[in-house]
């Protein structure tokens, strides 16, 4: 199956932990062999004692098998406990590392690649998909391997006493193992592969219902949205039901197979016993041993009907890994004086839509340029190019006369204060959100910057002050407050180049006016690119351009 190839990178990750995994598998094997020893030795012992009792001599060494039984009883318990603990620790260790790795890869992607998937999808990759991978070793790799080894070993052991018993064992248990693994995997493939996406779909619907509740309730559209939810929930439940039934059927096959193998070995043993080939105790031992060794097959149907889910999770994580390589470059070391910014013949296209074609613009050190334009026309794209959120398809952008395509994004961004159009606040305290701008800012500095965005009286009135939690995406704040917190955060950065995208949106006229004058003062001595839909909504500019829809992408027109 080609689909299984998507597990390869993850098997590679497992290989890094070979030592731990091998020890884990050995512990698993020890557990199974202890159970085998306990049951078969007990069977041998009882039959032997019974025969000794009826035979003339009536003597049997009871101490050796007795201590053997006790030994296996203890070793089974201990090895099982250690095995489970050790293996789960290994897997969780692996999973925690994977989470960090996946996020680390995510955080280096450029803005356009990130925009291709939805936020909750990323989340799911980070948590559920990685969690699903824990099946790989603990349920899918080690148990069949251990079962195979113990079946082979026991068959050899049985063959030493009674060759035909060994052959029959292999003839029944090996195909049974194949049914429990490959068979169940094939049978549950579609439903379990699909289940991962269906579960995620349900999660998306749940988020929609929470975030869009205002619209949904007032429009009385909640029932319509619930209908979507119910349809998707039913599809998920149907898949789960199907998988459950197939697992149950797999278990049925395994139970029947194991019991019939035991019976077959017993009958062969009885025949051999009658012909004097084996002793009574050995006959019973072989039958009970078959029962015990087959225990290793018991959990396989359950694990393998879910193989599709593990593969699906791996596929999605792989797709994420194959996304564009991160942007890199030389570190920028120049000083903190106001820089120049030049766009030279820049070309950008989003899919089929041309945004810019041959666009040029120069911002001199200390200059303030305003860019006015309709929403969706490319103002934010202009800003994203400046911070190297992605590279243009043609032309280049220069920061202080250096092409930024050769600069490390982090060192470039450290010199730019960029207020994005959406006020992206984090589920954290007010202070922590502000300190993103300057991790070393003192409380006094925070209060000062809050004052310049007219938030100081409001923040003083909060019972928790700076330690107030702002809620998810700053939802505990009004739109205008969130905007000003985001602005304050940028001001704290104190960078020589400033890009403000709609800095005054969502503010009432009075607040906007006083923040405008505060910004006018603060921008002195900095180069600034100011983006807005209206010159009135921007601080005073030296020069103002209008971004308009042209024949080939958007173009700048001097006002």
């Amino acid at each position, binding site marked *: 199956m080609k689909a299984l190839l998507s597990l390869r990178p993850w098997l590679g990750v497992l290989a890094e932990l070979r030592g731990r995994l091998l020890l884990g598998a050995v512990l698993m094997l020890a557990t199974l062999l202890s159970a085998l020893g306990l049951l078969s030795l007990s069977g041998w012992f009882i039959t032997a004692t019974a025969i000794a009792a*009826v035979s003339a001599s*009536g003597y049997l060494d009871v101490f050796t098998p007795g201590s053997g039984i006790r030994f296996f009883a203890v070793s089974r*318990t201990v090895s099982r406990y250690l095995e489970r603990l050790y293996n789960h620790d290994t897997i969780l260790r692996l999973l925690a590392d994977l989470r960090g790795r996946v996020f680390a890869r995510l955080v280096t992607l450029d803005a356009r690649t990130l925009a291709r998937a939805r936020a909750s999808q990323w989340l799911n990759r980070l948590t559920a998909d990685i969690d699903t991978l824990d099946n790989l070793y603990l349920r899918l790799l080690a148990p069949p391997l251990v079962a195979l080894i113990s079946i082979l070993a026991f068959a050899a052991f049985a063959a030493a006493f009674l060759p035909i018993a060994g052959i029959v064992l292999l003839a029944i248990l090996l195909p049974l193992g194949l049914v429990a693994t490959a068979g169940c995997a094939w049978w549950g493939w579609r439903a379990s592969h699909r289940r991962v996406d269906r579960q995620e779909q349900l999660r*998306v619907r749940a988020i929609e219902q929470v975030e869009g509740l205002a619209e949904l309730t007032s429009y009385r559209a*909640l029932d319509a949205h619930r209908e979507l939810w119910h349809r998707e929930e039913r599809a998920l439940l149907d898949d789960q039901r199907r998988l*459950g039934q197939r697992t149950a059927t797999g278990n049925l096959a395994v139970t029947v197979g194991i019991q019939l193998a035991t019976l077959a070995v017993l009958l062969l043993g009885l025949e051999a016993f009658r012909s004097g080939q084996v002793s009574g105790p050995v006959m019973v031992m072989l039958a009970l041993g078959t029962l015990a060794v087959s225990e290793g097959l018991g959990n396989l149907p359950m694990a393998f009907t879910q193989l599709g889910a593990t593969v699906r999770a791996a596929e999605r994580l792989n797709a994420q890994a194959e996304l564009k390589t991160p942007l890199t470059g030389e570190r920028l070391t120049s000083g903190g004086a106001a820089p120049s910014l030049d766009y030279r013949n820049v070309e950008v296209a989003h899919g089929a839509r041309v945004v810019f074609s041959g666009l040029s613009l120069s911002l001199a050190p200390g200059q303030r340029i305003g860019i006015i334009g309709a929403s969706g026309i490319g103002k934010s794209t202009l800003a994203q190019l400046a911070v190297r959120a992605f590279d243009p398809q043609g032309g280049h952008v220069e920061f202080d006369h250096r092409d930024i395509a050769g600069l490390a994004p982090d060192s470039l961004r450290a010199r730019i204060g960029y207020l994005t159009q959406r006020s*992206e606040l984090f589920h954290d305290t007010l202070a922590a959100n502000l300190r993103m701008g300057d991790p070393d800012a003192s409380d006094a500095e925070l209060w000062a910057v809050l004052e310049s965005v007219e938030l100081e009286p409001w923040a003083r009135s909060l019972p928790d002050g700076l330690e107030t939690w702002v809620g998810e995406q700053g939802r505990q704040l009004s739109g205008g407050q969130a905007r000003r917190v985001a602005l304050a955060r940028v001001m704290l950065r104190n960078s020589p180049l400033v890009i403000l995208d709609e800095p005054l949106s969502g503010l*009432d006229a009075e607040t906007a006016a006083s923040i405008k004058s505060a910004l006018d003062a603060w921008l002195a001595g900095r180069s600034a690119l100011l983006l807005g839909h209206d010159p009135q909504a921007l601080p005073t500019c030296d020069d103002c351009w209008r971004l308009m829809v042209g024949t080939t992408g958007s173009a700048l027109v001097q006002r």
Partner: protein
Amino acid sequence: MGPSRTNASRTGASRTGASRTSASREWLKQQAAGVRPWYRGAVGCGLLAGLATLIQMGALAWVVDDVVSNQATLGDVTLGVALIVIAIAARALAQWGQEVCGQACGLRVKQQVRARLLVRLQQLGPVRLASRHSAGLASQLVDQVESLEGYYSRFLPQMVLAALIPLVYLVVVFWLNWLAAIWLLIAAPLIPLFMALIGMGAQRLNEAQFQAVTRLSGHFLDRVRGIATLQLFGLAERSVEEISEVAHDYRRRSLKTLRVAFLSSAVLEFFAAVSVAVVAIYIGLGLLGYIQYGPAEQLDLFSGLFILLLAPEFFQPLRTLSQHYHDRASALGAAEGLVALLEPDADEEATPAGSTRPDETASRELTPGAVELVNVELRHAGRERILGPLSLRVDAGEVVALIGPSGSGKSSLLQLIAGFIAPSAGRVEVRRDPAIAWLDQRPLIIQGTLADNLRLVAPDASDEALRSALTQAGLGQWLASAPGGLETPLGERGVGLSGGEGQRLALARVFLSPARLVLLDEPTAALDPETEQHVIAGLTQLAASGRTLIVATHHPAIMAMAGRVFAIEQGRLSRIERSADARETNS
């Protein structure tokens, strides 16, 4: 940016851990009420499987005894072998039945619980939900409910079986040899005792782990959503460390839970193994005649082997139960969060519940589209008064603008009218039939096609109606250039749409809906003049169609459109005469 303490303040500190646990246990039991038949089916099948096992083992011992002790040929024991085969088939089928019935229980309970949670979210309303993490809620709704399944499909039926099946076996062993039965009996009661002790610890840890998972998803989504911002502020590396720190913390918590959970099953396994060993040795010595005491002399190979074969089976239901113990623990852990979500919280009790659910008191006299507020006050628990007392009557077809600085309470007033929050005092009267149209700065874009997004508010609308609504909202050109037309897929949070386009899509919904009353919260914020013009033209058309518009705005053109303009200052409304000064301050 430390790890967030999402629900710390919300998990009612007044309730003790013990009473919370018993509440969740009670709740879990209640949920089983609707699935009794399937539950009984699972238990019945399990019992059948147990009896079939008994017959299988008995027949096995009989066949061996017959051949070994009585030198019977295989032909002599055909009946025994046939019995074994039948018993095996019956046992396998019964187990299948148990699994399938059990799963039916689990699936049905999940469906019930999810339905109740959805109703609960609706009750909480958009304002109270705003303070909660939507990913956390989604994970409760999907993943935590998912973790209830094992409790109903496996644990509950197994709990009955773990009591019944060993009892049946014990009676049989007692009948064969009472001393061997006593050996088993001595070990048996210790097991539930140990398991109860260990299970309690496991459960507490499980709860902690569930909180960690909820927090973990919240933390991830928050950081993932803000990746662009993290990159801008050069915090990418630091947040990677933070993420793996949180993930490792999760690992440590999980491991603590697992260590205890594994210990409980190890204890059980130990007792089971020791009992089997003791019984085996007792039988062996008894057969040899070393034991003079009790019924040992009557032991023969049949009874000895039968008892030996039954001894592991005696413990098997308990072992299975202990394997499913974590199902119970995770169900309890999940239940605690779900119960907390389902029961009213402190904030809710503070507001006089149901004093004016607008749809209940909606006076029949009000014409559709009209609104009446009488002495309305609004305060949040433990905070200053936000609004009121204020009174306002808006007639059907009127256009009213609300202005005021951000945070002055414009949105709260709209939320009151929409019925998302109940007033602390006074009355809000609104006809909510057929619907109220709501438009704010964060339009809902569901995953689905453009048409799906529109039909949400008017399920029966024709394609023609959809197109005309889009054109009225200024999206006509966009539609013409959209690759799939009305079937163009749109994503979560409107990826593929610009902010202005999302806003116009929301406006198209207003046109499409039969609502007479339209509430708009800053509909033109962040729109360019052109889009703005489209929106304002659309609003004018809406007003002309006789719909009532109540708009929170800063935009002079909308204020000019309004019949009446009110300023909100310190929670009170003051009428602004439509004069030049209103325009001047804002343009």
